[in-house]
């Protein structure tokens, strides 16, 4: 059964088969709103996998060291740390309720033994330090082993405390809080390749921060019109270029992408490049603009391409060509004839993300009914897989799924009308170097790996 070529060295062409590895989260049918996963992100090495949820909590999983006695099982991901990143707030001045939902998590490159990540809700970005402690000092002079203060008059000699090993403790502490810089709701954060700065984007503005400085940020993009009645588009996503620290892109609700160069001016309201696919005016409809809204933009690891996700498709753009994408992949074209009901139940506004594999040879994005799609850029093959408890046996190979659009439904196919639109896969992540993927299905996190040997 043909799979989709994954990362690793060399080119595409090798077919891999995706197998179930793990699933995290509760099984019960009644899903609490707070448990809905809102972001998933591997760190630079892929050893850590972070999730954020609507309840403002972050859970970090760590990959276990590979076990030589079990060569068929690649390292599993187990809980490493968990903490409450954001709490619900109320802005009394504006009568605004601020959700604690974690919109995005971005890891910082590792520079010492500790791990750092940025997590953000609608209004506030926080820098978290996750560090391990496996030693403890014993033999203090002024206090007992259980922490009680010793009577200073009873101390007759001095001793030097010694470090003794202890059970591993993982601590998470907030090191910086970047607040009060966004009037509108933050949709993206992106760490710069200079490892010193990062950007945060809301519906109308993009700010540039220095990781050390919390009381100031530079505003680098402002698309707020003088008269709000003239508002026609909002910023939907933004990202720094992976290698050029002066370049970033932002996407809009009108399906356009602007590339900006911070060297050209302090305020990047004028773009350096403008990416837009020309539209056939005869096919324009009420839904055209809504489904063209870009929900995610991601640079390729090479920095040569970028990928955008709109409601029905994923497009790959060459940064050197602004007038059209170089590749377009249909995610669920069969939904085009369901747009009326998708508008009524608000699903048309769902924001799907997309991701590249490590070698940029494949891309992945989610769909409905807990389906997710992978496209091989070299072979042009695509596959639809499902994240479900039914196919959750260890190392069980995932069977490709197919949606039936026409009249006759074949066995094992599912018809468009039977799709569950409440089971949406909005967030997926691909390990930076290996064929391991993390898929968030509402309140469950699935981890799939390719079959070894």
């Amino acid at each position: 059964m043909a799979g989709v070529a994954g990362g690793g060295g060399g080119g595409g062409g090798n077919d891999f088969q995706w197998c179930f590895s793990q699933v995290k989260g509760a099984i019960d049918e009644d899903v609490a709103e707070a448990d809905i996963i809102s972001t998933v992100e591997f760190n630079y090495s892929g050893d850590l996998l972070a999730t954020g949820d609507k309840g403002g909590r972050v859970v970090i999983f760590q990959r276990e060291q590979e076990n030589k006695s079990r060569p068929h099982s690649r390292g599993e991901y187990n809980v490493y740390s968990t903490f409450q990143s954001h709490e619900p707030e109320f802005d009394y001045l504006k009568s605004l309720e601020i959700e604690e939902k974690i919109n995005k998590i971005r890891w910082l490159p590792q520079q010492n033994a500790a791990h750092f990540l940025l997590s953000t809700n609608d209004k506030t970005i926080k820098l978290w330090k996750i560090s391990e402690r496996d030693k403890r000092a014993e033999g203090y002079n002024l206090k007992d082993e259980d922490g009680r203060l010793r009577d200073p008059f009873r101390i007759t000699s001095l001793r030097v405390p010694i470090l003794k090993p202890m059970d591993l403790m993982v601590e998470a502490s907030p090191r910086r809080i970047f607040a009060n810089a966004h009037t509108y709701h933050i949709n993206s954060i992106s760490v710069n390749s200079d490892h010193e700065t990062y950007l945060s984007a809301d519906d109308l503005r993009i700010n540039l921060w220095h990781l050390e400085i919390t009381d100031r940020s530079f505003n680098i993009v402002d698309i707020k019109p003088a008269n709000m009645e003239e508002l026609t588009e909002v910023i939907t996503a933004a990202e720094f270029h992976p290698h050029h620290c002066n370049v970033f892109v932002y996407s809009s609700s009108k399906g356009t992408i602007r590339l900006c160069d911070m060297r050209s001016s302090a305020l990047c309201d004028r773009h350096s490049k403008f990416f837009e696919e020309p539209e056939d005016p005869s096919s324009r409809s009420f839904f055209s603009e809504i489904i063209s809204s870009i929900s995610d933009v991601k640079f390729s690891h090479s920095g040569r391409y970028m990928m955008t996700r709109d409601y029905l498709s994923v497009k790959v753009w060459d940064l050197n060509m602004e007038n059209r994408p170089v590749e377009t992949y249909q995610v669920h074209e069969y939904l085009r004839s369901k747009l009326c009901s998708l508008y009524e139940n608000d699903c048309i506004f769902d924001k799907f993300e997309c991701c590249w594999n490590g070698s940029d040879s494949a891309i992945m994005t989610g769909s409905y009914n807990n389906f997710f799609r992978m496209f091989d850029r070299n072979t042009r093959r695509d596959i639809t897989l499902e994240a479900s408890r039914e196919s959750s046996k260890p190392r069980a190979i995932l069977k490709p799924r197919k949606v039936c659009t026409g009249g006759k439904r074949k066995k094992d196919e599912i018809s468009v009308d039977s799709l569950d639109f409440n089971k949406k896969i909005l967030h997926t992540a691909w390990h930076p170097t290996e064929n391991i993927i993390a898929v968030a299905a509402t309140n469950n996190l699935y981890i799939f790996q390719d079959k070894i040997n």
Partner: protein
Amino acid sequence: MSEKLSADSRCEQTGDEKQDTQEKEAVVPERAEEAKLKAKYPNLGQKPGGSDFLMKRLQKGQKYFDSGDYNMAKAKMKNKQLPTTGPDNNLVTGDHIPTPQDLPPRKSSLVTSKLAGCIWPALFPPIDLPCNQEDYSTPADGIRLIT
């Protein structure tokens, strides 16, 4: 840009081209869906991606009312009946007055994520983090996890 295009689509409905358009509507699924939507909601605005839709997006989170707005609205309609919130509570208030029933229920207390709790349920009691943001500059310890 969107204004220019909607003008074009309106022009299409002249006598000669009407039959072509009707054929096109059958062929292009999007247009058929649009016709369905317009049949259900005849008052739907001409600019779907325009101001109204975006303003609604920008105002997400606005839940409570301003007493000034409330009194202004009351004064404006002293003879008419006070309106209550419609199905859409998210519009800027001033024209409708929320009632206690419309306010969302208080959020439940913060507990550990089930993603973390599924393996060691007993070791994750609910923990209160320091809420005072001024403390962030001192290294405050977060949750301790014993593996």
